[in-house]
């Protein structure tokens, strides 16, 4: 029964979701199911949060490797929890919204969390450079084509690229670097992306049918699916 009940719910909800797309009276069911999921996910947060606290508290108590960082984690966790639950510093007190301007929660979020997130995001600039350095090497035919295409697109985005081929007459303007860059992105690149997306769509249909029909059951913890 431990597997059959979730499987039965999957089959029932899966077929209902498909039918609801084509049936106007059942159209609202899709949104209802999404809402049900959101409610379950919120309750599941207690499991995740509890797991986080347990792991870091254990690390701290037993002085495992890097236990100092667990102090930071726990202070951050309980600090934000208290600031949000107790609405510390909120104009309007406990009845005010959690993210009211001037509240401690809002201050910590906008002055601590967001800049830290932006810092991580900024790493992308350096990682793009390092990944490009490794990827754009003419080791074989395909890599050479990739290198040339990347070169054209990069140059085409700069005034220097425009200047380099500005002498080409209008009748052959497709050979101008900016136009070649636009063509590369809008023709072969877009065609490839669309082909991938068609494959993805069909893959999603196949995977979804396997899940709905109960052929795929690994996610339920049943390895014999």
């Amino acid at each position, binding site marked *: 029964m431990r597997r059959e009940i979730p499987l039965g719910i999957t089959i029932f909800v899966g077929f209902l979701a498909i039918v609801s797309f084509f*049936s106007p009276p059942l159209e609202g069911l899709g949104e209802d199911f999404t809402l049900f999921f959101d409610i379950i996910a919120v309750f599941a947060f207690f499991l995740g949060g509890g797991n986080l606290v347990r792991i870091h508290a254990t690390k701290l108590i037993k002085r495992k490797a890097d236990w100092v960082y667990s102090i930071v984690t726990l202070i951050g966790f309980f600090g934000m929890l208290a600031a949000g639950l107790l609405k510390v510093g909120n104009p309007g007190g406990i009845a005010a919204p959690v993210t009211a301007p001037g509240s401690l929660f809002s201050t910590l979020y906008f002055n601590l969390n967001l800049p830290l997130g932006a810092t991580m995001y900024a790493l992308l600039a350096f990682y793009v450079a*390092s990944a490009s350095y490794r990827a754009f090497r003419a080791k074989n035919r395909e890599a050479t084509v990739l290198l040339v295409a990347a070169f054209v697109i990069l140059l085409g985005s700069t005034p220097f690229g425009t200047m380099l081929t500005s002498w080409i007459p209008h009748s052959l303007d497709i050979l101008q670097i900016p136009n070649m860059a636009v063509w590369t992105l809008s023709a072969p690149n877009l065609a490839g992306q669309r082909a*991938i997306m068609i494959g993805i769509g069909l893959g999603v249909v196949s995977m979804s*049918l396997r899940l709905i029909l109960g*052929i795929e059951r690994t996610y339920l913890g049943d*390895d014999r699916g």
Partner: protein
Amino acid sequence: MTAGAQEPVSGDSVPTAPAVASVTLLTAEDYDYDDGDNLVLTWEPSTDDQPDVGSVTGYRVYRITNNGEPVAVADLLPGSQSFRVQDLLVDSAYQFYVVTLSAKTSAESMRTSVMLTEREWINWNLWNLMLITLVIGGAILVYIETAKRGKKLFIRKIAGLEAIDDAIGRATEMGRPILFIPGIQDMDDVQTLAALTILGRVAEQVATYDIKIRMPVSRSLVMTAARETIKASYQAAGRPDAYSEDMVSYITDEQFGYVAAVSGIMVREKPATVFLLGTFLAESLILAETGNSIGAIQIAGTARPAQLPFFVAACDFTLIGEELFAASAYLSGEPRALGSLKGQDVGKAMAMAAVVLGVAAVTLYSLTEVGFFKTAADWLQALFTITSD
């Protein structure tokens, strides 16, 4: 006042504002393919409704209630010729009229005949999508049945999946753990489910070779499902005692907080093999490059086309789009699952045929201007266009 002019004598009539013409041909019709809560009103605008020079300032739609009282339903701008009335009751009778408004006067139209709302159970506007769904879904079911009867189905080699065994073997030889990242979305994302099905196969091998697996997740429900998956895999491998709940840990829902934590785990614990399977956003390159910097063998897979180039550049093997969804069937070799892979090839064949025929039709029309080719091209386009209204 000029000489000879006469002043108006009291009792003479005061000039009134000119009358405005009402709308004509007002009709009410049932709105197609709805839940019986919509009607559509159409009319010919007032003859005084002219751009820039007309006297009409707007239209007001009225509904007649059961006790005969009119209720204003909407105010519309000049030039309006139709209005969709919503939030009505199914199988109920309604009557409407439209009042043309000007600066000083108004004109009421004739009332519509009494109209019943109707509920349609099937939206036939989506006939093309129904047809495609039936064809592709039917093909998948047919091939599943074919595979169940024992027919061998050819599936091409997928390099990323063939490398999983070697990647796990590498971790075994080096004595270092495996890191499995199932993306940053929740259990309602099909890519996360695809990642968990691969996790089941990977975890069974991990249990067999007695190496560690580490799985930091960013969603609580994924943590719960992943624990069940790994536990079942360890039981299937005959190693239930080796399973520990701490193999899967929740980090945070916050995108870059999760990325920072996972990057830290990679740098500190130096896993030999990293699996990046599921939905990724901007963090894909950060994770892939960090994994590359520690010398781990990386197998990535996502169905987000925008992230694929980053994985291809930074990872050793990449499962592109549908290969991620095919992975569980490919790895298990289970006939019914393999049959579904063959079935989706029918969809690909349909797409290819439509592209070739469509391109041919449009090209031939532009060359010959024969109407048949344009009709064919338009029909093909309509077949793959969704119109729900």
